[in-house]
């Protein structure tokens, strides 16, 4: 399952880091962060609850870039 989230982040490198962090989160199959359109597209592994997984994604993203936001 794929879902798109609006995000807020200031620099392009931070967006890359968020993408890395999201990819490494358990339950996430693949993730893409589009800095230009400020969107994060997350593909979840089968049988995962997107809501719970996204909490972890947000936590991991905050770790690499404190000044970021994902609008869940």
């Amino acid at each position, binding site marked *: 399952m794929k879902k798109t989230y609006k995000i807020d982040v200031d*620099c*392009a*490198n931070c967006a890359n880091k968020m993408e890395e962090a999201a990819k490494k989160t358990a339950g996430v199959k693949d993730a*893409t962060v589009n800095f230009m*359109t*400020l*969107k994060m*597209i997350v593909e979840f592994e089968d049988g995962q609850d997107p809501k719970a997984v996204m909490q972890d994604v947000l936590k991991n993203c905050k770790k690499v870039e*404190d000044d970021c936001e994902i609008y869940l």
Partner: protein
Amino acid sequence: MNKKQRKMLIRIIISALLVAALMLFPVSNSYLEFALYMAAYLIIGYDILLKAWKGILNKQVFDENFLMAVATVGALAIAIYERLSFAEAAAGHGEGGYTEAVAVMLFYQIGEWFQSYAVGKSRRNISELMDIRPDYANIEKDGELEKVDPDEVEIGSVIVVKPGEKIPIDGVIVEGNSTLNTSALTGESLPRDAGTGDEVISGCINMTGLLRIRTTKEFGESTVSKILDLVENSSSKKSRSENFISKFARYYTPAVCYSALALALLPPIVRLIMGISPEWGDWIYRALTFLVISCPCALVISIPLSFFAGIGGASNAGVLVKGSNYLETLSQTKYVVFDKTGTMTQGVFEVAGVHHNSIEEDKLLEYAALAESYSSHPISKSLQKAYGKAIDKSRVSDVEEISGNGVTAKVDGVSVAAGNTKLMKRIGVEYADCHSVGTVVHMAVDGVYAGHILISDIIKPHAKEAIKELKRAGVSKTVMLTGDAKNVGEQVAKELGIGEVYTELLPADKVSLVERLLEQKNGKEKLAFVGDGINDAPVLSRADIGIAMGALGSDAAIEAADIILMDDDPLKIAKAIKISRKCLRIVYENIVFAIGIKLICLVLGALGIANMWLAIFADVGVMVIAVLNAIRALFVKKL
């Protein structure tokens, strides 16, 4: 400017004024001086220090915040150290040290601010270019117009579109005539006329008259929603250049940090061992300069920005690109394979000419149209269309259709025979052969041969020019595939100047042919297939890059293709390739320029030639130039 940017701008101005004042009116009390410089430094840089600290806590040490924090704190420390050790002699020098530290932070923040402003601005520009989203639909209720959310309009409702408004939902005009501006969708500036009974697509702007439209789709299924969805999700697929840059940034920053550490420690230690003065301050200063130069921002921001601007510019020209990777592939296209019908030709049969006629052309067409008026065959339709006037069937009598031959009838009492050569032989009329390719309708009037009408699929007006443009754009091979008969296919290919043509193909043959062509070309060259999306979806997806044209209204094409030409003008293929080339050229310029300048400055910094001021240019200046260069990709009108 958003709130964050405004706040940052105020901080920049205050801090800059404070530094300027301190430079103009030096404070003699060294404690007060230090305090004032520290104030300027903290005003501009507190968030960087905070972020660097948080980064360390989160084990994310090597980012640009960390680089900047270390560089500026280091510079401050050197300044303080020099003041303490050469208290009276180096008063001037120490002051320079403070200014440098604050200036580095100040310029870094100015750079960041500019970047965020430029990115925000181009983000808005590009979304304005693509601003085709209708906000409301007018529905008539009890004689009054009511604005409703287009999402709530059901299929089959009648909506009213006033002059100047966007058509919100696909539908058919039930009342009214107007001129439609389709430029937001197709990039075509010529307005299109529409009247009762015409199908209209959402996103067009109604320019002149009031229209009542019966909707045929829901808003979510309408053209405008489909396109918006596509545009918003484009550039999510990343190109190789973008992936290269993010990987580069991942290794580059730590590498530079370790080099800086080595630069600060190794030479002084070696000098100590050799028994000369280690000059710690000098080497640490060089290492700090190194850190300032090293920020990867210019690269990391300018590459995706270039692609984004390129995609935005393309969509403004009526070319939708589904991702930056496709833009990259398109720029390497050397082989272009075309479908014939609907791509290079219009896919509708039209009267292409009247030859060997012994009576007036119009009269001959009139006879033909009337004689064939009872037939529903496409040929008869095209004859009626060429005739152009209403058919009065009462003028026609004694119609006899001879299957596989044609038709004989009496028109205004005159006997008319219209059909192929077999019919002419059958009624014993001498006929003239046609040398052109297409379907030929021979005509006999009153038992005498009156000429023939050539009906063929019309080549698109720009098709020939399009092939020429493609060759000029560096495409080395053009191939046409068609399911049509051999002589028709070869004739069209010859007329257009297409090098290779394969005819009488089934859809599956097209796939295997494209596969064979894919094997022929060498590694870096890419193959593009251009089709109209009707039953060539498998080929579109098999080619390196699939281009669908005339996609307005064809969902299959939008799904299957990687690049979509909104109108069906083949000239746009060359335009799309040129746009992609320009965009990629800018991307490479930025990569080479940014990495090149940084490397040079790094070497100069290590040798002690570059000071912090040059370092700041290498960082912020390069970024500003790269961003401005990236925005150039947006301008594609003249290509």
